[in-house]
């Protein structure tokens, strides 16, 4: 035990490890908040789709030669999120097909661009680290951390302030509209918040594993709890705990950060599922 603590102490004396921990926990917290909404609106895969869009946008930014890739990534992802959630209602291409189309399309174009124009010697390595986020969280600078804290505070504030509205719009959009709640505005808000979370989370787990961060805590919580409030709180707590355990394990064992966190999330889901079926009897 003492060895482990000494090792952790040593690692935490480096600022980049501390940054990684702060950013990781914040991202885990934010991404879990809207998970319930997305799962229930049948948009589980939007995280995946949007992160591929972000990947594509980043490829463009790299090819153009921008040093601050966020300038392109954030607006492109936000616009894609708005378009995707809008299609949920009345369009010729339905939600899941639209997500799949944009997701795969952006991934392919992004990879193609990087391959054609990148001057880096290690293309495969670059692409891999963007997709799986293996190292980028350990290369964060202080300003990245502040940006992350800023966006997280914004996301959490928006969520708390509009908590009841988000509940109502998710549970029954038609009723909300009929009684005078402007559901379109809140759908737009949800889309923007999701896009911001995904851009943030790309640093942590990379674009392939973001869906896991968004979906697993919510699904785990839905196995056990019966009210929206309890589900939201539990999924936030669970997500932060899983991220903490995942980051610590990855530091000690030298495993890739993103994949480790997601593995811990999967374990938590299985435990929640078993707990739920023991406590709640036979509930799906």
């Amino acid at each position, binding site marked *: 035990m003492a060895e482990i603590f000494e090792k952790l102490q040593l690692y935490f004396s480096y600022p980049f490890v501390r940054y990684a921990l702060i950013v990781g926990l914040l991202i885990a917290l934010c991404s879990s908040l809207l998970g319930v909404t997305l799962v229930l609106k049948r948009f589980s895969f939007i995280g995946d789709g949007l992160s591929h869009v972000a990947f594509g946008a980043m490829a463009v930014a790299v090819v153009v030669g921008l040093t601050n890739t966020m300038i392109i990534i954030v607006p492109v992802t936000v616009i894609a999120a708005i378009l995707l959630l809008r299609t949920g209602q009345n369009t010729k291409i339905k939600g899941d097909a639209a997500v799949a189309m944009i997701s795969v399309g952006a991934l392919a174009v992004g990879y193609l661009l990087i391959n054609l124009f990148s001057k880096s010697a290690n293309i495969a390595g670059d692409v891999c680290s963007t997709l799986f986020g293996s190292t980028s969280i350990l290369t964060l600078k202080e300003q990245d951390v502040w940006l992350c804290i800023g966006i997280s505070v914004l996301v959490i504030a928006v969520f*708390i302030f509009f*908590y*009841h509205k988000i509940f109502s719009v998710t549970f*029954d959009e*038609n*009723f909300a*509209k009929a*009684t005078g709640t402007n559901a379109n505005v809140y759908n737009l808000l949800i889309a923007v918040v999701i896009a911001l979370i995904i851009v943030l989370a790309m640093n942590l787990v990379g674009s392939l594993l973001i869906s896991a961060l968004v979906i697993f805590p919510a699904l785990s919580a839905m196995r056990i709890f019966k*009210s929206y409030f309890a589900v939201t709180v539990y999924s936030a707590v669970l997500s932060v705990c899983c991220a903490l355990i995942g980051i610590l394990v990855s530091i000690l064992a030298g495993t890739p950060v993103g994949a480790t966190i997601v593995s811990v999330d999967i374990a938590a889901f299985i435990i929640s599922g078993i707990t739920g079926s023991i406590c709640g009897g036979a509930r799906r």
Partner: protein
Amino acid sequence: MPEQIICKNLTLGYEGNAVAENLNFTVSSGDYLCILGENGSGKSTLIKALLGLKPQISGNIEWGDGCKANEIGYLPQQTVVQKDFPASVREIVRSGCLAKCGLRPFYNKEEKELAESTMQQLGIDGLARRCYRELSGGQQQRVLLARALCATRKILLLDEPVTGLDPKAQTDLYELIAKLNSNGITIIMVSHDIAAAVRYSSHVLHIGSKKQLFFGKSSDYIKSRVGQTFIKSEEVEGDG
């Protein structure tokens, strides 16, 4: 009786194709209007127009007696999303008060009390902490009815409320709605169930393919030719 809704020459449809043309009817305070018609006759479209979710192609919907388009309590058909939504009964009933909140992020004391008293009125206060998805169909409809009553005390618009309920639960729900109506709440109900419609309602609006076949008192509807034919055809279907 003051008139709450007046529809004049109302034509409804999608992308310029009319599904229902020239609807003319009025709803007065305390009425119990049943909207009948086959599938595809534009009943759902009419509901959306009344709720202000979908603009009409032509004609007018006028509101009287201090009613506005967004002051209708609405009981929608259940959606797939709701079947596995983790929400307690109390949370759902309270969400009916949302329009009263405006930009305020949380419910105030009055709104919480309104939710509690409405649950008592409908006999679901014992279920307040239960999970919505674990309730029976009849109980779920009561929860949604309570939510609608939190939104308004003037008009309730019910979209095929008894669909999927067992006969006992159907009767209970009809009785409950009749009770609300006798307390002065205007009821507008879309229904397939013609027997119950003529028994409980005060007025009937029958929409046929593309046009209005009948609007008037339920007692007149039973005597009318449209009514007779429709009732008979339903009975034959029921027997077969």
